[in-house]
């Protein structure tokens, strides 16, 4: 499955976080890579949206929208 990047979910992220997020740095909890959210790998075809680190491919974030409510799991995102 081909990955897109964080630009593809810029609207969704802005909806969830209330601000533009693609320029914000995200730190991978698994390998420590620090990159703008725009550079993360995004898989839209999974059940929900799966966001993976572009360096180690570990899951950084999962977003699932059901009936207008988005659940966000930031399991692999380090606070830095």
């Amino acid at each position, binding site marked *: 499955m081909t990955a897109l990047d964080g630009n*593809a979910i*810029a609207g969704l992220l802005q909806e969830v976080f*209330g601000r533009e997020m*693609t*320029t914000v740095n995200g730190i991978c909890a698994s390998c420590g890579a620090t990159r703008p959210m*725009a550079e993360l790998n995004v898989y839209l*075809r999974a059940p929900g949206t799966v966001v993976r680190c572009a360096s180690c491919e570990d899951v950084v974030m999962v977003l699932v929208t059901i009936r207008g409510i988005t659940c966000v799991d930031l399991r692999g995102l380090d606070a830095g």
Partner: protein
Amino acid sequence: MAGAAIPGRLNWQLATVRELVDETARAKSIVLELPGWPGHRAGQHVDVRLTAHDGYQAQRSYSIASAPDDGHLVLTVERLEDGEVSPYLVDELRAGDELELRGPIGGYFVWEQSLGGPLFLVAGGSGVVPLRSMLRQQRAGGSEVPVRLLYSARTLDDILYRDELARLASVDVDIRLTLTRLPPDGWQGYQRRIDPEMLEQVGWSPEERPLVYVCGPSGFVETAASGFVALGHDPQRIRTERFGPTGSER
């Protein structure tokens, strides 16, 4: 649900289609009127939402093709044969229709005068759309920033904004085309997929520190980005945007 717009929040808005312009056999530019549009930066996109009679909704992202000062918001949409949204936008939409969208969205894949250059734009297929906004912005601002465009398409008939690009090329914008299938007789441009050699020939050297924007399908962006890094370009000066078959038709 009509609610008061909260500043900074993304709100769905109704735009009116003012005009549709054929760009290629498969692509149209949609000129929109949008009261209260806050303006955009070159490279940003919008989310478009279609709602069926039974309430089913489909949403896709489309890059803004117009420059911030163009006066109208323009999207260019290429029809994907198995697409859910683009066939409607390209084949069914008419002037006077309304279209639901929200934006402008994105801040990473953006160019403005203050970022400087030299500016190297690399487009695969309809990935040229946000780069066209940057080109127009660069021209409109009377910028001294030198700009080059490398544009890869399948055939000459798939090239978006052909007349406009020809005009720009006749002024002082360095535009190179590469056709990956069926180049016409007497074709003088490149006739293959992009590769590091092409990026090196068309672009600036790493020492000249160009600001690079790559937009296209995933594989195209992958090839270009890794090519630039292999040539010694600073990854911090390379910005990429990928689009793919689902969720973010362009």
